């Protein structure tokens, strides 16, 4: 099953199902990236499984020609855990929206991160409930007006990357739908990681929360409003990388520098820096994208397998189990 490299193209991962997202939805771009990444991975389509809960983003499995399971709202991470338990050789992707992963499914997300189950977790964050027609979500910014919050929301949004780090996640990254270089690059890194690889993808819901991350997706502003961090490289941004971020570790904050030599080198093994990047939400500063944190850590199923190598149970062995404590009369 593994090892063997196959030549496939992104088109090979298209299914016969008509893609049914709204015209202009950011999910199309994510789908495109994912298909490209799958082609690059060179695995057999049959060894890959897409699992999802419910939501617009959760329609994903129908559109990727691998095995796919569109399950129930919020439970994709635990269903995916079961898949890995039964067949650790499979490459399992979990795709879902911000409500799916962070509202109803928040707990399962925490626990796959903590356990470090070997999954690729793609959180499609549009800061809104798409499929149920536009209610505010756990990532909606304060004051979001929606059918369920006509006067605006009062609750502070959750920061997915910070949450993932707090839960003990050891691979935490962020990208955005429209970044067709950065997103595949990030997903490839996630796929290569052995353990729970968490990628928050900022996505534009054109119908219910248009431009929630507009600054990032709009090509013009992108260079000014985001900073792509890469391990060992300085944190530069601007059209020509002419400015940089300097990490001020005391409070875990950043400042802008025009002196690029002064820009901090990203270190994806530094948990404090990762948390600071994740938490950096400030209109005056660019939004960090990239792999914030990636450190190797034993992953759950491997540990399980190593501890108790799995062979089918023979009848003979079963007899031994059965006879424990027995006597002959």
């Amino acid at each position, binding site marked *: *099953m593994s090892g063997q490299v196959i030549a496939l193209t992104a088109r090979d991962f298209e*299914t016969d*199902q008509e893609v049914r997202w709204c015209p202009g939805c950011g999910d199309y771009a994510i789908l495109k990236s994912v298909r490209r990444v799958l082609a690059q991975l060179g695995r*057999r*389509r*049959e*060894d*890959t*499984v897409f*699992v999802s809960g*419910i939501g617009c983003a959760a329609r994903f*499995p*129908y559109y990727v*020609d*691998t*095995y*796919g*399971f*569109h*399950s*129930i709202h919020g*439970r994709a991470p*635990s*269903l*995916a*855990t*079961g*898949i*890995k*338990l*039964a*067949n650790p*050789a*499979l490459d399992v992707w979990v795709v879902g929206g911000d409500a799916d992963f962070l509202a109803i499914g928040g*707990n*399962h997300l*925490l*626990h796959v991160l903590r356990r470090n189950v070997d999954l690729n977790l793609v959180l499609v964050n549009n800061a809104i409930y798409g499929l149920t027609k536009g209610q505010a979500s756990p990532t909606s910014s304060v004051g979001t007006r929606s059918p369920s919050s006509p006067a605006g929301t009062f609750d502070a949004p959750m920061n997915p990357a910070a949450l993932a780090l707090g839960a003990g996640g050891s691979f935490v990254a962020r990208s955005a739908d429209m970044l067709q270089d950065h997103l595949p690059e990030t997903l490839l890194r996630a796929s290569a990681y052995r353990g729970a690889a968490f990628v928050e993808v900022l996505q534009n819901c054109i119908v219910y929360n248009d431009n929630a991350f507009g600054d990032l997706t709009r090509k013009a502003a992108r260079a000014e409003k985001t900073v792509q961090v890469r391990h060992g490289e300085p944190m530069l941004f601007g059209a020509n990388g002419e400015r940089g971020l300097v990490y001020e570790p005391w409070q875990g904050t950043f400042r802008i520098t025009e002196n690029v030599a002064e820009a901090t080198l990203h270190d994806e093994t530094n948990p404090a820096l990762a948390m600071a990047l994740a938490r950096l939400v400030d209109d005056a500063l660019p939004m960090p994208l990239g792999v914030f944190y990636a450190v190797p850590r034993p992953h759950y199923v491997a540990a*399980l397998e190593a*501890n*108790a*190598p*799995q*062979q*089918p*149970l*023979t*009848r003979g*062995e*079963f*007899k031994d*189990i*059965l*006879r*424990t*404590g*027995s*006597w*002959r*009369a």
Partner: protein
Amino acid sequence: MTAAAPANHAHAPTTRTVVRFAGDSGDGIQVLGAEFAKAVALDRHDLMTLPDFPAEIRAPAGSTFGVSAFQIQFGDDGVLTPGDQADALFAFNPAALKTNVGALKPGGLIVADPGAFSARNLKRAGYAANPLDGDALSRYRLVTVDIARLTAEAVAATGVGKKQAGRAKNFWSLGLCFWLFGGERGATIEWIEGKFAKAPEVAASNVAALNAGHAYGETLELDAGSTAQDTRTAPRHGLFRTVTGTDAMGLGLAAVAALSGLKLTYCSYPITPASALLHFLAGLNGRGVSTFQAEDEIASATAAIGASYAGGLGVTASSGPGLVLKGEALGLAVAVELPLVAIDVQRAGPSTGMPTKPEQADLNLALYGRHGEAPLPVLAPATPAECFHVVIEAARLAMQYMTPVLVLSDAYIANAAQAWQLPDVDALPAITPAFRTEPRGFQPFARNPDTLARPWATPGTTGLAHRIGGLERGAGAGDISYDPDNHEAMSRLRAAKVAGIESTLPCEIDGGAEAGDLLVIGWGSTYGAIVEAVQGLTSQGHAVGHLHLRQLWPLPPNLADILQRFRAVAVPELNHGQLARLIRSEFLVDAQPIGQMRGQPFKVAHLEAELTALLPGAPR
């Protein structure tokens, strides 16, 4: 206990003997009970045990709510219940006496240690005066034995400390039991030596206590009562072990792994009394079994579904509160048609209820606890030992029909123990899951014309990549479909598939008359009590039959015929009439519920009285 060695015990047992041990949680009552049961079983008696744990982990010593008890009935004519009333009660302290004396039959034997009846303990138990003095217990035969002191003396030579001396009391008592009721000390001594291999002085002290207790009985020529008589008939041959329902269920699941060659993926979240099964299987990790303690019940059920999807066999278990939480996941399994075994070890509800006590009130939930029309097979073992075969059958049906199957056990079945003759493993039929591998003509929602099952095509299989999900699927290709005709057809197909399952579980008269006045229909753990009650009525000349259902949905096809053969139908169950309601609606017969909600099994005598009242012609 062997007839050949009369000198070894005061009296051979009566046809049936019921002994009850009660003491503080720390007194080792459950070990005492289990070892006594083993000895009884080794001596080829039938037996049924019932532990009665306190709800608290470790309640203050001497408190009434901290009392731990254990009851065993043994005998030689098919013992099926732990007995309505005890012949003998070992009461290790006042609280144990207070809370358990009600379980003793008039004239029964009480063995009590006066040393434990201190002022403090009496007060904790709520006794104004010491019941061992005066005639408070005059209805019983009271024997006071200074167990603590005698144990301390017995173990003194082994050099253990005071604490261990206190702990050995249960073995001293066990020794006395062996004297009173028969039983060989050998197996217990072996067990002690294995268990305390790393602390030989502890082992020695326990053995010393055991022997001393026996010697004490012998020396004082204590006897257990007057009616002792050995009635054992044909000795049985073969391999035996005592099993609780938990053991048998766990062994059954291990058997599924061996018979199918699949990885049995057991996903669960701790809850009393289901956790014991997780503990049992956790010990088998890597031997065909993989256990996963999930973050909650929803995760455990969905992980089990994921495992089945990936070609393992997903199994999930819980008790009532957890089963409710799994409802949405079970509905998903019904919709996507994947095999799954879900076990509910029922306990008294509603809500948290009485978590350590048995009840059968989750039947409705098992049948109907999902939104939409989401039928699935529901099975229920009648005895601890039956858990083995029933759970194997559940797994077989799940895979053959591509459906989740629910198994209803309860706190009584899970904890009660009985002696069980081991099945011939080589004779157990293999389970051969029909994994689809052929890509030609593959459709994920095509149907096997016999079983109506869809194919099981697991990730990794070449050429079968496909998508499934909870949205309604078109027949055949399985694409999302909102077509009204398709939904109607798929709904009927799912129902027909479940309605048509053919299980190997029998549906036939379990005892009593094959036709006549009254049919008593039971399910689950009430088996023993119903058998005995029906025996009672039959012996009084009534034409009463007992049918115990192991398959609650779909109801067995021949049930209608059996119902027709009786003039009246009674359904005793530990709820408010849930099976009765099902039988009424399915067959329009006036099935009379006999409900009980006491967190306890039926008493045979009570049941007999209730049934008598329902005999045609009985005054109502």
